[in-house]
């Protein structure tokens, strides 16, 4: 039984640990910190963060394309964007340090991460786009559906 190799630094080498156990506790501290930020933001909801960063582009085809490409900063409240980004940060450290992705071969890492990320992004794009469209159908000026009765 050979010794298992662990990469003992996180944040691109900014934080180095002496042993694997120490790294685990370090990651726990970081994850708890991120969750605490989320909870505090979720309770106080600062007014500054309650609006999107940009307003939608007006115009033709390229405006629509721009709205799709920049949809996270155009249609999403800044607070929600921060929540999602922090969630992805947490997911990264759970996968990389708790699931030892950091110590796996690059090919295994890419096989899992690229496949998942690609398919999930695709699915989310399709379903959210469609959900927004159905909303328009329900609530447009020429809508034939009445729900307020």
């Amino acid at each position, binding site marked *: *039984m*050979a*010794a*298992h190799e662990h990469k003992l630094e996180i944040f691109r080498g900014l934080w180095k640990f002496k042993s*694997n*156990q120490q790294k*685990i*506790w370090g*990651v*726990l501290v970081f*994850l*708890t910190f991120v*969750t*605490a930020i*989320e*909870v505090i933001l*979720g*309770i106080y909801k600062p007014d500054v963060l*309650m609006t999107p960063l940009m307003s939608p582009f007006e115009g033709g085809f390229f405006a629509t394309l721009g709205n799709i490409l920049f949809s996270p900063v155009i249609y999403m409240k800044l607070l*929600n964007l921060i*929540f*999602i980004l922090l*969630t992805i940060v*947490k*997911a990264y450290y*759970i*996968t990389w*340090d*708790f*699931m*030892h992705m950091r110590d*796996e*071969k690059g*090919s*295994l890492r890419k*096989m*899992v991460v690229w*496949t*998942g990320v690609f*398919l*999930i992004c695709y*699915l*989310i794009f399709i*379903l*959210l786009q*469609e*959900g*927004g469209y*159905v*909303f328009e159908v*329900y*609530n447009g000026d020429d809508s034939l559906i*009445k*729900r*307020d*009765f």
Partner: protein
Amino acid sequence: MDSTVASTGTEGKTWGGGNRPLGASYGKLMMWFFIVSDALTFSGFLAAYGFSRFKFIESWPIADEVFTHVPFLHGQELPMIYVAFMTFILIMSSVTMVLAVDAGHHMNKSKVTLYLFLTIIGGAIFVGSQAWEWATFINGDYGAVQTKGGNILQFGEYVTEDGKEKFKRISIDDFAMTVEGQRVEHERKNGLWFVDEAPLPEYSVSEIYNGLAANENILVRTQTIDENGQKTVLSREESLKQVKDNGQLVVKGANLIVNEYGTSLFADFFFFITGFHGFHVFSGVVINIIIFFNVILGTYERRGSYEMVEKVGLYWHFVDLVWVFVFTFFYLV
């Protein structure tokens, strides 16, 4: 570093199962494949939740107003606190799991046993917390009236707290007025002997209406979200008119058919997604218990490798990973 259990006699050969390009054992690789497919299942659910939410973006319930309860702190509105506690428990049990894996690498049987035990305890606390969360959600707190169109009308009044005027919810129990001569639940012994009826709601719409008419301060709140991100509160006349004309059913709590907090889809997705996740946690606990006994019996000690702990650990961390996303999309965003 040969951590596979069985040796196939084909090591080093290009064909026949030797020569591992990904540098991971068969079991670990299969666990990763499973995790990828399970991640796609969960993202399918969460994306479907997003679809339905976008479809009803103007009337979706506000999670902070739904999940406000903390055990032993009755009557206080504390959004986020309990679910943050659950998240911390799950992350903590992930930590003990990864410590168990680490102890396994050092072939330290007693430490693996201890950490696995702590992991099981953490998982059990989480499942229990989720059961409590479900029970609270199902029982409901304020009650509401459902309209013919399936919309929800909630009740409350404006109060001034710390110099700020805010809308405070009022429970239907506090103002509903009992009307004599209401219909009673049909039972086999007093009607058709071959027909059952589901229990009637605690109050009828006319009882709620009478209570509303008698209390000048109470207003109706619809599920429509205004430009400030708050639910719309109707005027006194509108309130009475809505309940009288459109009210159909008094609902308290939530199930798969009705939901006092807003659109019933919200409750459906809540039960389905957290239920599916809770089922994963539950099976994770069961698998953990199985390998816990294997560790005690010395199975992995004799095998010369604690890789099984590592594989189950991967599953356990994945469950934690999913929760991080469920937490964000159900409680935060």
